[in-house]
């Protein structure tokens, strides 16, 4: 356990805290099961760590100290009575603020929902509670999950623990930063165009977008309903797998939820960790690399591919020609659905209301409220979507984007006839500086270039750290993509690669995260 203690922060003088927060979720679960530690002790360690590093990171919008400790006590009591709810019972978690919680505010990073506490739990929230997982609080995000840097949060940006002048990715930058700063062993994200995987890549953590429909969207505040998918985030592939099995499965409250058995991802992660990929066919996507990709990212990616070959995988190059049009299709489809979904923020039933002085009509109040409550990126996307859906432009924009979506799905189908999984870099570059792309939305959108195709096609996709870029010392992610409902393949290949990477690089990547300034 010597290697894990460093990342948890021995220099902050809290050796007990560091010893516990440095553990993986799987290690914590084992210690809880063996009675070596209580959930209350673990939860207190994380709350201490949060108090110490939040001024430097700002991963959380809300920390529920009282609720977390109460949940921890219940988990301890249940375990003492011989009825632990799940393997992860008593393990803490950070929840993205886009999932509803009946006992905590849910703001989606927006002024529109400031102070709002929903009347019900999301299905993901409910399943976590039923599994005895301890909810530490809600994490920061780009407003309504629109963005790639967390700079679009109305409550200020989150900082990347690897370099606090840089972005932690987005929209789920709070969840990824909480993991990399050892403020939580597990987190939940949501991924519409890469909002789990891109933050995972730039913070050196693991993030999985399950197959669309694999995890219920009930209580996930909708941005783009045909693309949104909640998923697990962790510091290791096995941790993500343990969390995946807690949250996945059919839900009658989500009509798009897939009514099929949950892929056996924990077993796949354990099998993968044995390090044998003989018989596995891996396809390198030709279109996701080359010009425009940072050199260090490309070198890290090639080293990862070599490692997969060394593990026995058969690696070939495959072409997915329509991926070149993925970004365009996505930035027409997602804003179109967003313009429709965000019409619900009408200042009438919940959330902000501005300008209701008795003289103004409902429509005027609505317009003033939406102007005051939404930030610039949300407004841009609402207007872009309104345009793409308007008569006269519909066929050329939204209609054409939907056809391109079909062609991208066909590219995947053809590729998966040749190989078991596809791989690419997760992002074209490492974490950029805070402020660098704020004025230039199109530049910001490029961060999602490699992750978008899997949202459009709905297949499963993971980002697993591949090391640090040699030119800037920042984390790089390897993206692994699998066919729909074959999420287990991600975990088998991801765990095998992770073990080989750690062996080759002399320890877990996450333990090389720099010490943070502590309060």
């Amino acid at each position: 356990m010597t290697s894990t203690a460093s990342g948890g922060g021995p220099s902050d003088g809290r050796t007990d805290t560091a010893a516990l927060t440095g553990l993986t979720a799987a290690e914590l679960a084992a210690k809880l099961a063996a009675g070596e530690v209580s959930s209350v002790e673990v939860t207190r360690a994380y709350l201490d760590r949060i108090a110490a590093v939040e001024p430097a990171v700002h991963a959380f919008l809300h920390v529920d100290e009282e609720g977390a400790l109460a949940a921890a006590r219940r988990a301890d009591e249940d375990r003492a009575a011989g009825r632990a709810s799940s393997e992860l019972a008593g393990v803490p978690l950070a929840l993205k603020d886009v999932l509803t919680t009946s006992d905590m505010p849910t703001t989606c990073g927006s002024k529109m929902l400031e102070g709002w506490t929903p009347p019900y739990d999301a299905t993901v929230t409910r399943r976590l509670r039923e599994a005895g997982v301890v909810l530490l609080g809600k994490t920061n995000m780009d407003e309504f999950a629109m963005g790639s840097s967390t700079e679009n949060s109305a409550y200020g940006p989150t900082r990347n623990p690897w370099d606090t002048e840089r972005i932690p990715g987005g929209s789920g930058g709070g969840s990824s930063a909480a993991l990399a700063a050892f403020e939580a062993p597990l987190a939940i994200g949501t991924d519409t165009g890469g909002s789990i995987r891109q933050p995972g890549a730039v913070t050196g953590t693991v993030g999985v977008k399950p197959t669309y429909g694999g995890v219920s969207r009930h209580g996930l505040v909708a941005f783009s309903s045909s693309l949104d998918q909640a998923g697990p985030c962790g510091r290791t592939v096995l941790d993500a797998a343990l969390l995946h099995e807690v949250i996945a499965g059919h839900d009658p409250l989500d009509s798009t939820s897939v009514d099929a058995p949950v892929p056996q991802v924990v077993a796949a992660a354990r099998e993968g960790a044995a390090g044998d990929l003989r018989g596995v066919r891996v396809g390198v996507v030709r279109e996701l690399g080359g010009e425009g990709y940072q050199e260090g990212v490309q070198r890290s990616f090639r080293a990862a591919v070599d490692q997969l070959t060394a593990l026995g995988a058969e690696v070939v190059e495959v072409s997915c020609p329509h991926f070149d049009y993925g970004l365009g299709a996505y930035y027409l489809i997602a804003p179109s659905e967003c313009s429709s979904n965000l019409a619900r923020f009408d200042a009438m039933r919940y959330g902000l209301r501005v300008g209701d002085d008795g003289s103004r009509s409902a429509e005027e109040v609505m317009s003033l409220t939406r102007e005051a409550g939404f930030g610039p990126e949300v407004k841009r996307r609402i207007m872009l979507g309104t345009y793409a859906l308007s008569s006269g432009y519909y066929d050329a924009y939204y209609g054409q984007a939907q056809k391109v979506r079909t062609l991208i799905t066909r590219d995947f189908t053809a590729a998966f006839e040749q190989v078991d999984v596809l791989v690419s870099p997760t992002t074209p570059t490492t974490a950029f500086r805070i402020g660098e792309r704020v004025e230039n939305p199109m530049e910001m959108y490029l961060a999602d270039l490699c992750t978008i195709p899997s949202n459009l096609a709905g297949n499963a996709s993971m980002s697993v750290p591949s090391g640090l870029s040699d030119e800037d010392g920042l984390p790089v992610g390897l993206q692994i993509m699998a066919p729909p409902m074959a999420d287990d393949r991600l975990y088998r290949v991801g765990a095998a690669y992770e073990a080989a990477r750690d062996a080759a690089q002399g320890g877990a990547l996450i333990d090389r995260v720099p010490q943070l300034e502590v309060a």
Partner: protein
Amino acid sequence: MLDRARDTGKNDQGARAVPTISRDEVAHLAGLARLAVTESELDTFAGQLDVILDSVARVGEVAAEDIPPTSHAVPVTNVFRSDVVRPGLSQEQALAGAPAAEENRFRVPRILNEEA
């Protein structure tokens, strides 16, 4: 247009004589979307939306006449359940987040333009 394209950092591709979307069109869209945007926002958004639309319009290069559109990644059909009463939100819960409530109902501003 050139200046505006430069402002958005895309002077190499964004500089065209006729923008894809005009400032007036953006003002119209804001009205449709019920966003009371300011004049200065209109200036900024018009330039940015023009660059974005110019880029995403690349999807038009794909020959896709006979390709069926995909609206959803997985096949979606209506899901029905039996018509039985189930617990829902109480009136109190439903109104808990309301900006204004009166007599156990949402209170909203007048919806017609005439004076009441």
